[in-house]
C-alpha cells in the first residue's frame, strides 16, 4: 500500500527503474576500464611490473562490456524467471569471455619476452572478475530456482578447468607459478584441511565433555566467552611461550612427543576458538525440543537417555549442523595463522609469498583458503537446510 503511494509521489523514478541495473553496470564498466590496469608485465616473478590498460583487449573488450550491459538490461526489463535466466546466461558468457581475453592478452604480452617475464592480472582484471561474479550470483538468485547457484558454479568451474587443461591460461603468471609448485600447493591444501578438521573434532569432543559437567557450566561458559576476546596471534604466541616454558621446566615431556612448535599448539589454539560456536549450538539444540513433547515422552515412560537420543538430538540436528558450519569456516581461516608456529598448511605458502614479496605465490596460498571456506560454508548450509526441511515433514 505504502509502496503504491510512494510510486505516485515520484513518477520520475518509475521510468528510470528498468534502466537502473544497466546504468549501474555502465558506470562500473567505464570506471574499471577507464581507471584501472588490466594486466602488469613484469620482468620476473618478484617485481610488480608496468601496467597495461584495457585497450589491450581490443574488440573483445567491447563485446564483454556489451554482454554485461545486455545482462543488466534483461534484469531491469522485467522481474520474470526467463528474463533472469537470460541475464544469468549472458553474465556467464561475459565472465568466460573475460577470462579467455585476459589469458590471450597475457600470452601476447609475454610472447616476445625473456622466459622469466610474467604477465600478471592487475587490479582492474580482479575488480572486473569480482563484479561479474557478483552480477552472476545476483542473476542466479533472481531466477528463484533453488539450485541455480550450484549449477552455475559447477558449470563455470568445469569450464575453467577444461580451459586450464587446454593450456589457454598458460600465459598468466598465476598458472606459471602453480605449475612450478603444484605438488607443494596440493600438499599444503591437504595439510590445511587436516589441521582444520582436527581442530573441529577436538573442539566438538571437548565441548560435549565439558557440557556433561553440569555444575561447572556457568564458569565454563564465562571462560569460553572470554577466550573469544583473546586475539589469535596473541593466543598462538602465548601458547608457544607457555609450552616451551613448561618443556624447559620438565624436559621429560619432550620424549612423549610434546613440542612447542608445530601442528599441536596450532590445533589447540584453533580449537579454543571453536568451543563457543559448538557450546552455543549444543545449548540451542538441547533446548529446541518443546517442554510439552519432553513431558509427553516422560509420561509414556521413556528414560532420559531415550529422550536425549530419540527426541532432543533429532530435533536439535539443524542447530548442531549450523554450529558445525560456523566452526568449520572459522577453523579454515584460523588454520592460515597456524603456519606462524610451523604447522604448515596454506598459510605457509601465503607467508612464503609475503617473505619473498611474490604476489602470485601469495595468491596461490590465499585463493584455496577462500575457495575452501566458501565451499564448506555453502555445503554445510545446504545440509542445514535439508535437515530443517526433513524435520518439518
Amino acid at each position: 500500500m505504502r509502496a503504491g503511494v510512494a510510486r505516485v509521489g515520484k513518477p520520475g523514478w518509475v521510468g528510470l527503474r528498468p534502466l537502473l541495473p544497466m546504468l549501474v553496470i555502465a558506470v562500473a564498466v567505464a570506471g574499471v576500464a577507464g581507471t584501472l590496469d588490466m594486466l602488469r608485465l613484469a620482468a620476473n616473478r618478484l617485481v610488480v611490473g608496468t601496467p597495461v590498460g584495457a585497450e589491450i583487449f581490443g574488440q573483445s573488450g567491447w563485446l564483454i562490456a556489451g554482454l554485461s550491459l545486455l545482462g543488466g538490461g534483461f534484469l531491469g526489463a522485467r522481474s520474470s524467471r526467463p528474463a533472469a535466466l537470460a541475464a544469468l546466461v549472458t553474465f556467464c558468457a561475459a565472465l568466460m569471455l573475460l577470462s579467455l581475453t585476459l589469458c590471450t592478452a597475457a600470452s601476447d604480452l609475454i610472447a616476445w619476452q625473456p622466459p622469466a617475464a610474467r604477465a600478471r592480472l592487475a587490479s582492474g582484471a580482479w575488480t572486473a572478475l569480482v563484479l561479474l561474479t557478483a552480477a552472476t550470483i545476483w542473476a542466479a538468485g533472481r531466477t528463484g530456482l533453488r539450485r541455480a547457484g550450484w549449477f552455475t558454479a559447477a558449470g563455470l568451474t568445469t569450464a575453467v578447468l577444461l580451459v586450464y587443461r587446454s593450456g589457454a591460461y598458460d600465459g598468466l603468471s598465476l598458472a606459471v607459478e602453480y605449475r612450478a609448485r603444484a605438488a607443494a600447493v596440493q600438499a599444503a591444501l591437504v595439510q590445511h584441511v587436516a589441521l582444520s578438521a582436527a581442530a573441529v573434532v577436538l573442539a566438538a569432543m571437548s565441548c560435549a565433555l565439558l557440557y556433561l559437567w553440569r555444575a561447572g557450566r556457568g564458569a565454563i561458559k564465562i571462560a569460553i566467552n572470554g577466550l573469544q576476546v583473546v586475539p589469535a596471534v596473541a593466543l598462538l604466541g602465548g601458547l608457544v611461550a607457555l609450552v616451551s616454558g613448561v618443556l624447559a621446566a620438565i624436559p621429560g615431556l619432550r620424549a612423549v612427543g610434546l613440542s612447542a612448535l608445530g601442528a599441536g599448539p596450532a590445533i589447540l589454539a584453533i580449537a579454543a576458538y571453536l568451543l563457543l560456536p559448538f557450546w552455543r549450538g549444543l545449548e540451542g539444540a538441547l533446548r529446541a525440543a518443546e517442554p510439552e513433547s519432553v513431558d509427553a515422552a516422560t509420561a509414556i515412560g521413556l528414560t532420559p537417555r531415550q529422550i536425549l537420543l530419540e527426541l532432543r538430538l533429532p530435533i536439535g540436528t539443524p542447530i548442531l549442523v549450523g554450529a558445525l558450519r560456523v566452526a568449520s569456516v572459522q577453523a579454515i581461516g584460523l588454520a592460515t595463522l597456524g603456519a606462524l608456529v610451523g604447522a604448515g598448511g596454506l598459510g605457509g605458502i601465503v607467508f612464503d609469498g609475503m617473505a619473498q614479496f611474490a604476489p602470485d605465490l601469495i595468491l596461490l596460498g590465499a585463493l584455496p583458503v577462500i575457495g575452501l571456506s566458501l565451499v564448506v560454508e555453502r555445503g554445510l548450509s545446504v545440509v542445514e537446510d535439508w535437515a530443517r526441511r526433513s524435520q518439518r515433514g
Partner: protein
Amino acid sequence: MTSNRRLPQALGSLGVGLVLAVLSHPAVATSIAALLGAPGRRPLAAGRVIELAEHHLALAGLGLMLVGVLGVGLGVVATRVSARGWRNGIDTAAAVAQAVPPVVVVALALPVLGFGGPPTLLALLAYGIMPTLRGTIGAIEAVSPDARQAGIALGLTPRQVLTQIELPLAGAGILDALRVALVLSIATTAVGALAGASTLGTPIVAGLQNQNLLPMLQGASATAALAFLGDALMLAAAVLLRRSLDR
C-alpha cells in the same frame, strides 16, 4: 543480554585486562619465564611496550572508527529502503567477507598497498564492516513495530522516528555489534605485524621467528590486555546507555 549481567562482565574483562597488562611488564614477564625455568633473554623495555601499544591503539581505533561509521551508516540506510532483496545481498556479502580471513586480506593487499599500515587498515575494514552492518540491521529491526507506530501516530517525521525512537531503542544492540568489531579490530591489528605494521603483534612474530620467549609472552599478554580493556570499555558504555534510557 540484560544490563544487570553486563556490569559484572565489564568488571571481569577489566580485571583480566589489568592482570594481563601487568604480565606484559618486563620485570613480571622475566620472573615468570624464570619460574618456568626458561632463561630470560632480552625482554622488551616498558617504554617500547607502551609505544607499540599506542601504535596498535591508533591503528585499531582508526579502523574501528571507519568500520563504525560505514557499518552503522549503511545499516541505517539498509533499514530505510526496507527492500528484502538487499538483505539477501548483504547476507551473501557477509558470508563471502567472512570466508576471507584477515591474514589473507593483509597478504593480498601487500603487493598493492605496500608494507605497514595500509594493508592492515584494509583488513580491518574488510573484516569489520559486515558483522557491524548485520548487527545494526538486526538491532534496528528488533525495535518493536508498536514503538515505531506510536511515533508515527504522534506525528514524528521519519527522521525523528529514527533519531528519537529507533536508534535509542536499538542502541544496546548496536553497541554489542561495535564491541565485537572492537575486539576483532584489535586482533586484526596484531595480524598486521606480518605486513610490517608496528603493533603489539610485532614482538610476537619476531619472537616466534628467533625463538625468543620473553617478547613473545609480553606481546601476547599486552595484545590480549588491550582486547579485554576495550571489551570492558564497551560493556561499561552499554551499562551507561541502559541507565540513561531507564531514567
